[in-house]
C-alpha cells in the first residue's frame, strides 16, 4: 500500500514537473510571436492547468464520480 501511495505521489510529481517544459515545447514553433498572438500565452498555461485538474479530480469523490463509467 505504501509503495502504491509513493508511486502515485511520484507519478503526480513527474507529470506536474513535465507540464511547463511540455507546454513550452508546444508553444515553441510560435517563437517570439507570442505578444502578437490573440492567445497571448494562453496556450502556455492551459496545459499545466489541465494537468493540475486531471490529477486533482481523480483524488476527490466528486471527480471520481465524474470520471467513473456509468452503466
Amino acid at each position, binding site marked *: 500500500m505504501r509503495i502504491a501511495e509513493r508511486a502515485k505521489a511520484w507519478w503526480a510529481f513527474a507529470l*506536474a514537473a513535465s*507540464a511547463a517544459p511540455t507546454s513550452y515545447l508546444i508553444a515553441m514553433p510560435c517563437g517570439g510571436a507570442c505578444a502578437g498572438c490573440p492567445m497571448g500565452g*494562453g496556450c502556455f498555461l492551459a496545459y499545466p*492547468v489541465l494537468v493540475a485538474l486531471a490529477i*486533482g479530480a481523480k483524488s476527490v469523490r*466528486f471527480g471520481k464520480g465524474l470520471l467513473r463509467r456509468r452503466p
Partner: protein
Amino acid sequence: MNAKETLIRNRWRYISFVVGFFLFVAPFALFTRAVYLIVGNTAEPTLHSVCFRMPIDWIFGGRFYSIFGSSWFMAAFVFGVIISSIFLGAAFCGWLCPVGAVSEAISRAVPIPNKFRLRIRDTKLTMSMRYGFLVGFIAVAALVGYKLASDQLGSICCRYCASSVLQNFASALFGDLSAIEYWQSGAIISLLFWLVIGGLFMSGGRGWCLFFCPLGAFSGLAHKLGARLGFYRIEHKPESCNGCNKCQDVCPMWAIKEDHNIERTLCVNCKECVHACDAYKLIRGRKIADS
C-alpha cells in the same frame, strides 16, 4: 461556521491582507514607493516592480548579474520573504500576499457546497504537484537562461501570472484604463484558474498558491527547515485530538495530514487549525505560546 464567525476569527489576518494590497499593488504600492524614495528611483512603481517570481527565474536561469543590477531590491524582497519564512513560517503568504488574499476572500464570500469543491486529502499528492510544477518552472527558466531554448518565456511570463492580472485589474479599477489592453486570453485563463477554479472551486480558495506560486513553494521549504531547527511552527498534540477532522476542513492550504500532523511545506501560518481545535498549539522555539 458562518461568514460572520470566519470574519471575526480572521479579523487581524484580513486587515493585514488589506495592508498588503496597499503596500504592493499599484496605483498605491506604498512599499515600492518607499523603497524607490530611498534609492532615488523616479519610476512609477507597480506590483511588477517587486515581482514575486523574476528573481527566482534569474537564479535558475544563470542571470546572477540581474540580482545585483538596478532591480536589486526586487531580489532582496523575494529572498527576504524566503529567509523570513525560516523564522516566522510562510507569514507573507498567509498574512500579506494580495494574490492569495483575493482568491481566499472570494472562496469565503461565495457559498458553494463543499461537495462541488476540490480538496485533495492526501498531502503527499498535493505536495508532489506543488513541487512538480516548481521543478517545471525552474526547468524552463534554466532552458531559456542557458540559451538551450528560444527566449520567448520572458515575453509571455506575465501573461500567466496572477499577480499581473491583479495589478492590471487594480489599475483599471483605480483610473488607468489603458490596463484594459492587457486582457488577452492568457490573462483570462490566469484569471479563471486563479479566481474561478482555484478560488471558487477549490476548498480554501488557494489553488493558485498551492500549485503555481514559486515564491510560496520556496517559502514552504524554508518553513520546513525553520521548523526542524526549532523556530516558529504549529504542532499537533495527539492526546488532545478526538479525530473530528475539523482541522482538515478549515485548512485553506490542505496541509493537515491523515494523522492530523501538519505538512510544513504547505502551511502558510494562517492559524485556522489553532482556532478550530485545542489539539493545535503555536510553538516558538521550545515554548508553547498562547494562540
